[in-house]
Each structure stands twice: as structure tokens, then as C-alpha cells.
């Protein structure tokens, strides 16, 4: 892999994370537990979509093959997607959606903090803007973890179940492969493995306040950095990409 290939791949990871999570949030549209949450979820979804567009546009430019954000979003099949497995998991109930969001927000907050010091100025700029948004996202999902964890018996049980169901998807966030290493060496990327202690501290604090039990590290899955996904991603893409795939000559 050339440096360019690696930067391209690295930007795809960032863009795909935001895009797939935003797409999942879009599925909630009109179905949230209260109108205020419909607004909040579309708001967060919009931020994620905006981040995705910036990362993917940049990725396309780095690649230099004329692929723009839409070409990258609509004309890649499963094995070329780089989003974390966590983010393609189904919405489930509101507890599941919020748990997924919380785990990712609290990771993304630290990652964007690191990336806003990137030697790649464009990347640093996107990260700095995104960090502001993610600060709000993290506050929002943190509040819900606490509310639902320390709410009623039912909400506590649902939230505990949710964090257990997602727990094994989390180690993947902190994996470092050759691309990550190279990006760190170049001062472009974030050392995500090094973020783990701070992430743990934040998450532990919130779980404690929410009266939730931190699950055992009993299982974990990974694969997204090599394009090995769960079976959910294929369905997300079939739906998301339908129009551009069905009418490849059209402009929208």
C-alpha cells in the first residue's frame, strides 16, 4: 500500500463510520419515543452525514480516480466498506440505539480530539468541526444512558441488556492495523489503542452513575478494517444504494 492508499483507506474508515451510523439513525425518522427525540436523532444524523460527506470527499480527492462522495457512498459493495461492525448493528429498541451511540460518541470524542491535532490540515479541520458536534452527541447519549439505567426497572433491564449485546463490538474500535500505525507515525492519524484508558474511565463513570454493571470481556468480534462485516451491512447497502444503482445514468 502506498502512503496515498493508506490515507485513502484511513479517510474511508472515518467517513464510513459516520455515514453508516447516520443511515441507521435515519431509520428512526418519525418513530422516536417522543417528538423531541425525533428532532435530536435527525440532528445527530445530520451532523454524521455532514462529517461523512467531508471525509468521503476528501478520500475521493486523495484517491484521485474521480470518485466523489456519492460515487464512494453509492457504488461500493460490502467488502469495500470500512465502518466499524458496531455501527451497522440494527437499531433494536431505544436502549440499544442509545448504547451504540454512547459507546461510539465517547470513542469518537477522543478520536476527534486527537485528530484535530493532525499534521494533515484538512483532516484536522474536519476533526475540529466534528469534535464540537460530537461533544453534543456524547452529552445527549450520556444523558440517556444515565436516565434509562437509573430510571425504571424496565429501562434499567433494557439498557443493561443493550450494553451486553454490544460489548463485544467495542474492542474493534481500539484495534491498530498497519494503516493506523503508519498514520500515527506520519502524525496524520490517531493512536486509537492509546485512547482506551481514557475511554474506559469515562464509560465506567457513566455506567456507575447509571447504576449499570460493566459487562465482562467475554467475547469480541472484528474484521471491518479488512472489509469483513456482519450480514447486516448488505441490507443497509441494498436499500441505501437502490436509486443510483438502478439508474446509473441519472443525476439527482
Amino acid at each position, binding site marked *: 500500500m502506498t502512503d496515498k492508499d493508506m490515507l485513502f483507506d484511513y479517510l474511508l474508515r472515518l467517513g464510513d463510520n459516520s455515514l453508516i451510523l447516520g443511515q441507521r439513525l435515519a431509520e428512526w425518522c418519525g418513530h422516536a*419515543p417522543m*417528538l423531541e427525540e425525533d428532532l435530536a436523532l435527525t440532528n445527530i444524523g445530520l451532523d454524521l452525514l455532514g462529517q461523512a460527506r467531508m471525509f468521503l470527499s476528501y478520500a475521493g480527492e486523495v484517491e484521485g480516480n474521480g470518485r466523489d462522495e456519492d460515487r464512494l457512498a453509492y457504488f461500493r459493495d460490502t467488502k469495500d466498506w470500512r465502518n466499524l461492525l458496531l455501527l451497522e448493528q440494527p437499531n433494536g429498541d431505544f436502549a440499544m440505539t442509545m448504547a451504540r451511540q454512547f459507546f461510539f460518541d465517547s470513542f469518537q470524542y477522543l478520536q476527534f480530539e486527537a485528530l484535530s491535532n493532525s499534521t494533515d490540515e484538512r483532516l484536522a479541520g474536519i476533526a475540529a468541526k466534528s469534535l464540537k458536534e460530537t461533544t453534543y452527541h456524547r452529552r445527549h447519549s450520556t444523558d440517556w444512558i444515565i436516565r434509562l439505567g437509573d430510571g*425504571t426497572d424496565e429501562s434499567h433491564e433494557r439498557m443493561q441488556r443493550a450494553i451486553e449485546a454490544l460489548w463485544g463490538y467495542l474492542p474493534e474500535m481500539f484495534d491498530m492495523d498497519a494503516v493506523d500505525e503508519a498514520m500515527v507515525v506520519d502524525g496524520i492519524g490517531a493512536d486509537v489503542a492509546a485512547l482506551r484508558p481514557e475511554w474506559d474511565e469515562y464509560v465506567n463513570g457513566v455506567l456507575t452513575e447509571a447504576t449499570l454493571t460493566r459487562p465482562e470481556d467475554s467475547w469480541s468480534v472484528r474484521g471491518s478494517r479488512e472489509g469483513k462485516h456482519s450480514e447486516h451491512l448488505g441490507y443497509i447497502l441494498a436499500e441505501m444504494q437502490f436509486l443510483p444503482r438502478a439508474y446509473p445514468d441519472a443525476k439527482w
Partner: protein
Amino acid sequence: MGVVDREFEKLEAAFQAKVEAEQRIEPKDWMPEKYRQTLIRQMSQHAHSEVVGMLPEGNWLTRAPSLKRKAILMAKIQDEGGHGLYLYSATETLGISRDQMFDQLHSGKAKYSSIFNYPTLNWADIGAIGWLVDGAAITNQIALCRCSYGPYARAMIRICKEESFHQRQGYEIMMTMAQGTEEQRDMAQDALNRWWWPTLMMFGPNDSNSAHSAQSMQWKIKRQSNDELRQKFVDATVPQAEFLNLRIPDDQLKWNEDRGHYDFGEIDWEEFRNVVKGNGLCNRERLQARVDAHEGGRWVREAALAHARKQEARKAAAAA
């Protein structure tokens, strides 16, 4: 005539005088019970329509054909949710809670705009909704900006601004589709064919058949008649369709030089009643989606409430 009746007559006369002097009625002002009820009916229907209206557009959010279009659509739907919130609040000033309004919606007692009982079947429908449905809504809402009830009039002013933005975005989608490939053009025409007549129905029955209209006009809840508003919409929209090179599905549509307006065909009110009655393709889905969201979200709202109470109790304990 008793004292109470005389007192009532005086209040009513003062109320009507104020309305006629174009002063706004505010929540704490005295108002006739029927005025209040009429406003609750109309405003809550309006609020429900914003919220139910998120569904046909939400249907294409995950399938929007470019990231930019997806972002625009998402922002639009979010605005609609915001309008819903804003209108529920305005309606609450009349002494009804949001939960009561939801109950009325879910039990079928309160209505939402029947236009949302039609399905969105291709991407051009998203354009057509913005262009036609929002266009019709704005025509209505501009008139409502001078409505006699203050909170409603102010809500309308704010909402109109965003809606006209949405309308332009919808028209832009139609333009892109109409200038696109043959298939896109077909989608645009198909969307116009399906949405044109239902949009005209949004203005309500012909004036000769409009039960509530006279009283609403007297109270200045309504400022222009259904037929006037419909004509205004048709006059504004026909040239836009011509510009798109799309055909409005009405053989009788033509410019009437004498009237200075477009003549247009008879609305099939039987279809209108049919859809209102429950025979639209999506009546059941729309209501069920709202009921499911509300029922499915109960545990979340209860948890939020329970947590807030715990927090307060803790604060109180700490202060003691």
C-alpha cells in the same frame, strides 16, 4: 335574559370588536368556547399533520439518491418535527395538553391532513410533496399569518419562512428530474399525476359546501375562502409546471383571459371523502406508525420521568 347571559353577550361583543379591529386574541383573553374549540381542532390537526407528514418523506430518507439530497431531506423532516412541536405548544395555550392531543389523534377523533394517506412511490414524490403539498400549505398558511389568535398567527409566520424554503427545494428536485433521463422524467410526471388532485383537495370543500367557513371567517381564524386559496395556488403553480415541461393531469385546465385566472376541472370529491373515510393506501400505516412510536416509547418516557424524580429527591435530601 339573566345576568349571566347579558354578561356573556357583552364579552362576546367586545371579543368580536377586538377581532374586527385586527387586534390579536391572546391566551389569557376571554374567548367564546366555540372559538377555542375551533382553534383546538384546527391547530391540533395542523400539528398532527406536521408529525404524520414526516412519515411519507421519511420513507425515502434511507434511499435518497445522493448524500446532499439525503441531508436536505433530513433537515426538512427535522423542520417538520420542529413545526409540530411549535404548534403543539401553541395549541396548549388553549388549555389542552400534548398527551390529550395525541390521544385524540390515536383514537381517530382528531384528524391530520388527508394528503399524507397517499404513499410516496418514487423519488420524484419527494419533489412533488415539496413543490405541491408544501406549496398548498404555504398558500393556506400565509393567510393564517393574520389569524386572530396570536399564538397561531405567530407560529404561522415562523413556519411560513421555512416552508417556502422547502417548497423551493422540492421544486428543484422536480426540475432535476424533469431535465434528467427519460426514466427520471417519467417519475416526475408520474408523481405530478398522483399528487395534483389530492393537493387541490387540501384546500377543503368548495365554498358552497364548507360548513365551518362562515363562522371562521367572522372570527378571522380564516381570512380567505377555500376556493379563493385554491385558485391562487393553481394560478401560481401552472406556470411552474409549464416551465418544467410537465403536464398537469387536467384536460379542462386553461387560462381564462376574462377572469384573469386559470379554469380547472371538477375535483372528484367522492375520492376525497373516500380517502378521509379510511380508503387511502396509507391511512392504517400512518396512524399505526404514530401509535407504535407512542406506545413503543412509553417505557422511555416513563424512565425519563422516574429519573427526574429520583434526581429531585436526591437534591432535596442533600439540601435537608
